[in-house]
């Protein structure tokens, strides 16, 4: 399975179909491992082009309240890094095309063992990694060995990066670039459309990699306006909010799964460029 680049292929397909990609972010194991596996398995059919799975961590420093709670729910229900990898492996028995990117914080990987983790991730069918607290300054930790092993290393580009910093961010990036459209944590405010346009244009000058935009994208309209300038739109907290709402309303788990997939399908409508 190594050598085949699902991410590259996916963006080629999207281009052929003249649409942007919908990237869904969910915390692995949220609200509980079984429900999460069902949610995961149904994401491609619902309209997700690329799947980001958050590896639960007790101290998600870059995340807002929605994702913080998702992390705690997942951990409280016994989720672990190993189980996250197992869920990817299970998903891969059903779908060998949709890229899966693991996103999270370094410590659980550090504890698991970096090389052991890289091998297990590749074995499970993971395509790339986004590790929030590993900036270019710490590339020797996980970035270099991951790229050597064939995993994509996807970095966050931010509004705080000037052109010089951007070059540093892009240097060891592969797969795609994830532009974080606001300064701040996940699930809070949304960016000004004009700012995002400008930033995407600035990044394009320095790279041929596809650009995904995320943080603050909550509705099909946000997806549509993002699709007009970027190669993909990332939706996270808004999806997680539907899980939380379902839990609060004490809906049966099957209903929560269904509502989530319905919302993904709705968001996916925003990705067409020739509407």
């Amino acid at each position: 399975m190594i050598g085949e680049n699902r991410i590259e292929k996916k963006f080629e397909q999207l281009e052929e179909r003249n649409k942007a990609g919908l990237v869904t972010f969910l915390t692995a194991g949220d609200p509980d491992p079984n429900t999460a596996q069902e949610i995961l398995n149904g994401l491609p059919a619902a309209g997700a082009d690329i799947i980001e799975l958050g590896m639960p961590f007790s101290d998600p420093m870059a995340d807002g309240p929605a994702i913080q709670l998702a992390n705690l729910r997942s951990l409280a229900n016994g989720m672990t890094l190993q189980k996250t990898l197992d869920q990817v492996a299970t998903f891969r028995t059903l779908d060998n095309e949709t890229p899966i990117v693991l996103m999270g914080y370094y410590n659980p990987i550090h504890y698991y063992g970096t090389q052991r983790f890289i091998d297990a991730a590749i074995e499970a069918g993971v395509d790339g990694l986004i590790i929030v607290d590993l900036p270019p300054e710490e590339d020797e930790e996980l970035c270099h060995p991951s790229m050597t092993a064939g995993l994509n290393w996807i970095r966050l580009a931010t509004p705080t990066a000037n052109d010089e910093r951007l070059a540093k961010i892009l240097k060891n990036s592969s797969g795609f670039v994830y532009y974080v459209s606001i300064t701040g944590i996940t699930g809070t405010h949304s960016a000004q459309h004009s700012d995002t346009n400008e930033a995407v244009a600035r990044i394009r000058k320095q790279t041929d990699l596809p650009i995904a935009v995320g943080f603050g994208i909550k509705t099909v309209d946000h997806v549509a306006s993002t699709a007009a300038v970027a190669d993909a739109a990332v939706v996270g907290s808004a999806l997680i909010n539907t899980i939380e709402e379902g839990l609060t309303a004490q809906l049966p788990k099957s209903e929560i799964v269904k509502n989530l997939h319905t919302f993904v399908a709705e968001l996916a409508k925003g990705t067409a460029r020739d509407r």
Partner: protein
Amino acid sequence: MNTSDQSSAPESYRSGPDEGGHFGIFGGRFVAETLMPLILEVEEAYNRYKDDPEFRSELNYFSNDYVGRPSPLYLAQRLTDELGGAKIYFKRDELNHTGAHKINNTLGQILLARRMGKKRIIAETGAGQHGVATATVCALFNLPCVVYMGAKDIERQAPNVFRMKLLGAEIVPVTSGTATLKDAMNDALRDWVTNVDDTFYIIGTAAGPHPYPKMVRDFQSIIGIEARAQLLEKENRLPDTIVACIGGGSNAIGLFHPFLDDPGVNIIGVEAAGHGVESGQHAASLNGGKPGVLHGNRTFLLQDGDGQIIDAHSISAGLDYPGIGPEHSWLHDIGRVEYVSVTDDEALEGFQLCCRTEGIIPALEPAHALAHVTKIAPGMHKEQIIIMNLCGRGDKDVFTVAKALGVEI
């Protein structure tokens, strides 16, 4: 302990960190990309000003006339007699304005923040001592101050919460995660990534991403520099042993650093063992944790088998942190400093002993250091000398201690 026969011993123990902020494998800059430009900006500013004569003279002026430095090095004669062994000196940083060593650091950092043109200060606090020290310098320099504090800590440190409010700070109760110091630090970091343009984050201990561990150490090193000179003046010799308590490690590294290259000086850091390291309810990152990455640095952390951070426990809110500054992890790793631990009960005994024999109510944090002194002093010769960092006074802790002793006040 003898480090001189270690073939791998570095030429100096005082030359770290390297350019990337590493002490051996510890330290570093493990932060979100949004923060990287800021951290680099803080580093550049710190390097520019740390030896700048004007910066130094301003820092000295406020240290002396506002904080009350130098703090005395005091021979605790009655305690010495009671224990019947080594001579015990207290480095009396509890006499500083605001009652702890924390202000040495907040003063340095706010002077830097002012030079960087920052308009808003944020801080995290556990016991509230760092929060008070930050709110104090913010009042002094007329800058708005937001302090993140775990909801649980707000409950057990009510007097400090009110103090901070009197000083004009806004207190944000932190309910995320486990609602304690580590979560307060998470929320302060979340504030910082949201307000990158105008805000300076005054971290309260010698931890966090580079350059904080180095910067905080440098500002706290005044403790060890003074103590060294004062003892030479009084006794014409260096101490045999120096002892300090460890939360994140700022008062300890402040005392230790100027002595690291004196091979004859035995250095001991005292962690909080809570109900006992084997009980799982403790704050002893070195004695009961494993290396990991949190809050911007690689260091020893309390964590479970999945790399999830475990909540610390100590009767002292100021030691109740699941990590430790990276320089201590390195000093532990190479064996230059010995790290021991002291339980809640032992600290409570040390606390009362200090009150009774010296007429000094210590903070529960240095009461841990004192408890260890009571273990080692009797076995030492009468000519030998111990310096213990009495880094905070105990007014803030009287309610906690009363409760632990079953007294209603």
